[in-house]
């Protein structure tokens, strides 16, 4: 088990390193003066020079890269060009809405998609099954912002059930937060649910055709027992994979959804940074997003080994 974990960890570290290299290269290409960026507006010329020396900007590319990496690992993600505040504090301020939205979306998606996928798999080619398959295809095609606006129109404007925009922080009570998260989560989950439902369905259909399911039936097992003790355990693998794959697109969708619903999170931060050409912010966000995805995939890899004992560790 230990060897398996170490190998996956090592692989992840390498990927993070390459991501940072890419991000750093983008910095260089973007042409901004990194020393100035890190020093901020209020630094004096001497300070900037000192930082330049410290960062080794007169050094060849890779030395600069390591210098930059070192700085980042110490928690300094640079300074926003627009607001002159450290990027890390900007991120910290905007973290909560995005975090709650993401968690809510993942949980909702799994809870909604897996039963749908199971029901469709149990009745292949029925009208329910065909409806599920068709709905999934459509869900992939409709852009997130359209879904968002339609939902707002229906639920906020016409029915007046939910707030149009805005976010109530957790400090104001979980209920309030959830109310403001309902529509954004629904919008963001649409694609995720479609992805997960389709995978669950396909995986289930595969598993249900296997011999050991027949063995279980020959023992007198009913549908419920077969589902939970036999079928799901063998589909969990495929479902986990898709959860990991979907994280990247989820993070992309967060940007759109936060814009539509006016949530003051990292997605909106991205949009603001684009408007203001605030490069350090974008870089930091890329690093963050990539690291998150890598961590999630690492966790999923570990879960694989737990669920499927055939993986020789």
């Amino acid at each position, binding site marked *: 088990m230990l060897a398996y974990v170490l190998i996956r960890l090592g692989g992840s570290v390498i990927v993070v390193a390459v991501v940072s290299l890419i991000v750093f290269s983008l910095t260089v290409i973007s042409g901004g003066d990194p020393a100035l960026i890190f020093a901020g507006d209020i630094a004096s010329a001497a300070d900037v020079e000192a930082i330049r020396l410290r960062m080794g900007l007169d050094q060849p590319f890779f030395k600069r890269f390591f210098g930059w990496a070192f700085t980042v690992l110490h928690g300094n993600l640079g300074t926003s060009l627009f607001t002159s505040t450290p990027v890390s504090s900007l991120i910290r301020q905007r973290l909560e809405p995005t975090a709650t939205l993401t968690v809510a979306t993942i949980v909702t998606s799994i809870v909604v998609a897996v039963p749908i996928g199971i029901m469709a798999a149990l009745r292949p080619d029925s009208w329910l099954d065909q409806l599920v398959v068709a709905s999934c295809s459509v869900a992939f095609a409709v852009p997130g912002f359209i879904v968002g606006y339609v939902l707002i129109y229906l639920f906020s404007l016409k029915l007046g059930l939910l707030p149009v925009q805005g976010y109530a922080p957790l400090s104001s009570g979980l209920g309030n937060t959830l109310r403001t998260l309902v529509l954004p989560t629904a919008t963001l989950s649409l694609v995720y649910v479609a992805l997960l439902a389709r995978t669950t369905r396909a995986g289930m259909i595969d598993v249900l055709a296997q011999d050991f399911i027949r063995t279980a039936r020959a023992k007198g097992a009913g549908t419920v*027992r077969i589902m939970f003790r036999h079928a799901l355990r063998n589909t969990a693998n495929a479902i986990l994979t898709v959860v990991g794959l979907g994280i990247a697109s989820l993070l992309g969708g967060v940007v759109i959804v936060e814009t539509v619903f006016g949530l003051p999170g990292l997605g909106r931060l991205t949009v603001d940074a684009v408007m203001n050409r605030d490069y350090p912010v974008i870089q930091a966000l890329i690093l963050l997003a990539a690291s998150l995805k890598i961590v999630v995939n690492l966790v999923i890899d570990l879960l694989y080994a737990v669920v499927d004992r055939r993986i020789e560790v």
Partner: protein
Amino acid sequence: MPGPSALVGERHVSCRQQAALARPMAAAPVLSVRNLTLAIDRTLLTPVDDVSFDAWPGEILAIVGESGCGKSLTALATMRLLPPPIVIRGGAIRLDGTDLAQASEAELRRIRGRSMAMIFQDPMTALNPVVPVGVQMREPLAIHTSLSRRQTRARALELLRQVGVPDPERRLDAYPHQLSGGMRQRVVIAMMLACNPKVLIADEPTTALDVTVQAQILGIFRDIQRATGMALVLITHDLGVVAQVADRVAVMYAGRIVETARVQDIIARPRHPYTQALLRCARTDAGPVPRARHGMLPEIGGSVMPLAARGAFCAFVDRCDRADARCQAALPARLEAAPGHVVECWDVHRP
């Protein structure tokens, strides 16, 4: 002594005869299949046509036939585990009086694994790969009894010992991929016997295994039977297996049972042309392989008549060297050529 008795050692036969005499005769068969017809749904194709057989307690009935004759489907049908689009189009499957062909899914679930059990052909895929073997073995007990965890674990260990699995405690926590094919099949057998079923249907249980393991598995079947008086229906294409363990044989061809008899009778005096041809092919006398024409191995020319071509006539007609107009005109009637020896062939009707 020449002849098919080379398949069955003389001593062996007399041992079994003695054992049969010693066993009390049961009053009725525990499983009685009558006129079972299976069809592909929404078509007129019947891969299994008008099949009847009985399984008596303490007895091994072998159903023999080549690939595609419908024997596996017959086995699956008795447990109502037919894969769609195969359906039961007629007949009865009586287990201790209850007709399983008419039973509801709830009733069937009570019977499966408890009164009736089945072992499948491929031990490599019969077990759930992500669940420990012990859990799977205890599952029939968990479903059908209210025994505690400790009790089911004890029973599982006992069963593993009965089927000859060494170091049973360790095996209980193992996963299927950690066991060899022969070991897995023993586990499956033990698993299916957990609730002491009255009848066990074994569909080609040794086909996927080495010959040495095969002998061991067959030995396990005999031992279990001797101990519990269970009825065993053994589906196979291997005449050697039949000769070794079966008490009675039903020969199946193209979806119909063409000959049923006690194994000694069928080997000594096969009456259906197909059975005769099979035995000719299977014979290996104590000496070298018998030489037929041109020094080649004996074979049955042609191939099995496809489903769509079958009809109300003998399906063996295109390969039979004694076929005549009657065989093409109508399905042969069943005839009891000797006590306990039933044949479906027009040629046998001839005086």
